């Protein structure tokens, strides 16, 4: 066991090995509570739990030639562990309830923005109870400040952090139902079983959960311990299940925040500055009275960094916002452009420790340009504020901080704010921040009326949070047949972390080796890993705060650092005259990873002959307890690169993509695959097309026809995602962000091999002539066209 493990507060349990070689955490007894309530209510407490046992599939396997590298923190303790530890003290506050109509319900203290966690937790609960997942209603909990850290969605940690506590609560509920039924039927509890939403005895006599829940209710709160269902008996977990809201989605019934009809909550938009973070000069806009009299306009008020307009329709908000004549102060990066940012980062780069040895050293340097953090649903929130009480409806991943921010802005106590977490239209990191909630609270106060506040697309792109620009440097020193040292440096514009996540990381800082690291450094330390035996293996980061609005965007440091590493590995393999796949399988640290690499090679027919101008490329990544490998076939021939798409970015195309992932314990194959697919489309975009240009104090991109996220004409026509169902790893790995890095790095490697060029920046097409005419920054919102009827199809 690595020595710094002792620093954690986590007690380690001895782990027995089952015949299958799995580590059966499920043999142990778990403690939870029956809560005093009129119907059956159960809470889970997780006092003790295994982190990564020494005998886990992560255990290192050294190769003959490879020079072993000492373990790095994420190999045994990564962000998801840190977050799970932070949640432990409050898990007992999570309740699984059995209702009088026989259904089971659970208010999930996380936010679902498409990851499908409501579905997977319904499956987890149903599995443990033995009922139908369709009768388990998982909703998103309102903000509950008493949960402290345990209501944050990020870092692909939701399932990993709550899997066991929720199972414990469900198992106790089942026990209580069986006990109540045993008394009713005059039978021994052990002869009873659950079928559907009923408990049945051996003669077939059944009593519904609805009838049992009052009987099973506990008059006092008491501790109960349970043994969880062994994995071998799973019937629901591991079986593909559709996302629970698919019907609502395809019929248009799914309600996002802006679809809610809250009395008097009128559309509200903000007039923002031309510069990033510019703000209005003192005094009213010269034409404020005129604008107040525009059709539909109900109010104009100064808030935050701009002027808010409240109107009958969003269309009228847009017109009024564009009409406002505001004098603006310069922004936080007035006059600056990407080149200035790169220069400043270069000056801040940390030195590499191992000296370069002539003839034995390979160095590599990348600039990774900023990426837009927008979801398709722009930043938004509804706030209603009356008589000293407020209600908030918003897609929020950190709702406790959101509640606090709203309360501060409204000048009321936090418990006077009811905060409803609404399913989001995508997140990718954006919804960890409560920017729009803060603005909606300010606007509701300024107008004295409820507001339905929504960002316009152009400003969501230009002023919203981005995954900030960074550089990566790698230096590898080689021996004749191995890697003696491998050093990675990341230097980036400061990555902002929301208050809620800051609290989590701060609470866990003491546990990371090295002690008092800052918040970003802590995240780096517990998330970035070089999973190969490369001798002296160092990885350090440095960030510079420059006045950008930043945040993670479908992964934090993973995609860029993985790309830097995986491209370097191709170069090393070439220098050592080895096949890049074979090289990886020889130098990778763990058997679990090797298996994933070998499988992807087989599925993709690695090494097959390819036409000139096309090539295969590999990428490998390990994070969130998942292990992933990707092989692309990339076509960089002129006829593909120059295929015409009106206002679309084409360029080289990934024509076929094979992806293998070891997801640990697989809950819902459909959902896991979907998350990988999304991550893959992000990875391809990151590699080829999706970058922002910062120019003269603002971002040029203002629409999806400027910022080139993957579209149908970019996505691989052929895609094969294989989710391994026989993982040796006992717990569910993260999914939401996991797929990006391997796909991004494989695409860059494919491009390098297809074109024979050395990449020095991502996205690879970033320095092509700008294929669009940037929208002006004044007026701030591109006006809506009027000619759609000319393009009917």
């Amino acid at each position: 066991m690595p020595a710094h493990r002792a620093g954690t507060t986590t007690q380690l349990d001895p782990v027995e090995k089952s015949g299958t070689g799995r580590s059966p955490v499920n043999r142990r007894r778990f403690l939870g509570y029956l809560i005093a309530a009129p119907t059956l209510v159960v809470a889970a407490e997780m006092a003790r739990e295994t982190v990564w046992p020494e005998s886990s599939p992560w255990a290192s396997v050294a190769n003959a030639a490879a020079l072993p590298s000492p373990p790095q923190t994420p190999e045994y303790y990564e962000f998801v562990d840190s977050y799970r530890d932070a949640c432990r003290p409050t898990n007992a506050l999570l309740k699984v309830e059995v209702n009088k109509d026989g259904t089971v319900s659970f208010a999930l203290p996380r936010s679902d923005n498409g990851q499908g966690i409501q579905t997977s937790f319904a499956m987890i609960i149903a599995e443990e109870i033995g009922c139908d997942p369709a009768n388990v209603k998982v909703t998103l909990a309102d903000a509950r400040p008493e949960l402290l850290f345990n209501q944050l969605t990020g870092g692909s940690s939701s399932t990993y952090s709550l899997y066991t506590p929720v199972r414990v609560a469900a198992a106790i509920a089942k026990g209580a139902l069986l006990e109540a039924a045993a008394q009713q039927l005059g039978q021994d509890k052990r002869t009873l079983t659950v079928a559907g939403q009923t408990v049945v005895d051996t003669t077939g006599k059944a009593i519904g959960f609805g009838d049992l829940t009052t009987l099973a209710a506990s008059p006092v709160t008491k501790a109960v311990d349970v043994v969880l269902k062994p994995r071998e008996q799973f019937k629901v977990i591991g079986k593909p299940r559709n996302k629970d809201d698919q019907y609502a989605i395809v019929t248009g019934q799914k309600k996002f925040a802006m679809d809610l009809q809250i009395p008097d909550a009128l559309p509200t938009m903000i007039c923002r500055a031309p510069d990033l973070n510019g703000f209005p000069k003192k005094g009213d806009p010269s034409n404020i009275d005129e604008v107040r009299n525009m059709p539909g306009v109900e109010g104009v008020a100064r808030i935050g960094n701009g002027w808010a307009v409240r109107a009958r329709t969003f269309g009228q908000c847009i017109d009024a916002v564009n009409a406002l004549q505001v004098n603006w102060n310069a922004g936080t990066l007035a006059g600056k452009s990407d080149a200035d940012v790169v220069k400043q980062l270069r000056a801040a780069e940390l030195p590499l420790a191992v000296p370069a040895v002539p003839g034995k050293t390979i160095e590599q340097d990348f600039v990774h340009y900023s990426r837009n953090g927008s979801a398709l649903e722009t930043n938004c929130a509804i706030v209603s504020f009356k008589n000293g009480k407020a209600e908030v409806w918003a897609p929020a991943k950190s709702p406790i901080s959101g509640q606090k921010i709203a309360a501060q802005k409204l000048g009321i106590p936090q418990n006077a704010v009811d905060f409803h977490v609404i399913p989001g239209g995508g997140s990718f990191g954006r919804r960890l921040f409560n920017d729009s909630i803060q603005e909606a609270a300010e606007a509701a106060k300024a107008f004295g009326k409820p507001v339905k506040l929504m960002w316009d697309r152009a400003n969501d792109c230009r002023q919203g949070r981005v995954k900030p620009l960074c550089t990566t440097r790698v230096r590898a020193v080689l021996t004749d047949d191995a890697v003696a040292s491998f050093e990675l440096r990341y230097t980036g514009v400061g990555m902002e972390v929301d208050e809620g996540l800051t609290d989590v990381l701060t609470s866990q800082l003491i546990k990371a080796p090295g002690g008092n690291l800052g918040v970003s450094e802590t995240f780096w330390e517990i998330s970035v890993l070089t999973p190969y035996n490369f001798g002296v293996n160092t990885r350090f980061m440095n960030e510079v705060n420059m006045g950008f609005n930043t945040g993670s965007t479908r992964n934090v440091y993973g995609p860029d650092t993985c790309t830097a590493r995986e491209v370097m590995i191709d170069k090393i393999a070439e220098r050592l005259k080895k096949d890049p796949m074979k090289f990886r399988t020889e130098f990778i640290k763990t058997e679990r990873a090797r298996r994933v690499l070998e499988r992807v090679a087989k599925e993709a027919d690695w090494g097959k002959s390819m036409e000139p101008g096309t090539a295969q490329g590999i990428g490998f990544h390990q994070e969130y307890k998942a292990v992933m490998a990707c092989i692309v076939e990339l076509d960089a021939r002129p006829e593909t690169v120059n295929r015409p798409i009106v206002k679309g970015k084409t360029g080289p195309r990934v024509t076929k993509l094979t992806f293998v992932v070891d997801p640990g314990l697989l809950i819902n194959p459909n959902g896991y695959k979907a998350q990988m697919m999304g991550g893959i489309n992000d990875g391809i975009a990151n590699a080829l097309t999706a970058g922002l240009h910062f120019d003269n104090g603002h971002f040029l991109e203002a629409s999806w026809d400027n910022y080139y996220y993957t579209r149908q004409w970019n996505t691989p026509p052929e895609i094969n995602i294989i989710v391994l169902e026989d993982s040796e790893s006992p717990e569910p790995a993260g999914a939401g962000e996991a797929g990006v890095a391997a796909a991004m790095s494989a695409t860059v490697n494919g491009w390098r091999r297809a074109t024979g060029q050395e990449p020095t920046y991502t996205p690879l097409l970033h320095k092509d002539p700008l294929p669009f005419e940037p929208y002006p920054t004044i007026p701030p919102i591109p006006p809506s066209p009027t000619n759609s009827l000319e393009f009917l199809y």
Partner: protein
Amino acid sequence: MPDQTFKLNGKTVTVDTDDDVRLLWVIRDLLGVTGPKYGCGINVCKACTSHYNGKAFNPCSVQVKDIKPEDEITTIEGLADTVEGDGLHPMQDAWLKYDVGQCGYCQPGQIMAAVAKVRQCQAEGREVDDSAIEEIRNMCRCGTYNRIREAIKDGAQNM
């Protein structure tokens, strides 16, 4: 303010609003029909895609005055009623079969675009193949494109 009259999902509706308000806001903000989503307001993201007399269009980029009283506007909410029987439209069924949606925000627009694209291909005697699907511009930030492709091909079989 003038009265604006048109047919929305089979019913005649009349709204009192200015001529230049874009149809998307009339449908969403004034009539409370929220299937079509805002994703850009400039005819780029296609999240608002609906049907104008059976053809795909983007209500964020049409003024309400340009819609005539006899024009039929169909949003995702009205799609199932455009086919026989009590069930869903075959394209909606295909979407369910392939478990397409993630956040679901783009999907009303995706389905409406897919239906129109298949009808267009059928009218022109073209196959609903990858190149036809790649004419669809609808943005999906969750990256569901590959399932969308499968669903469209499947749904087309039953249209």
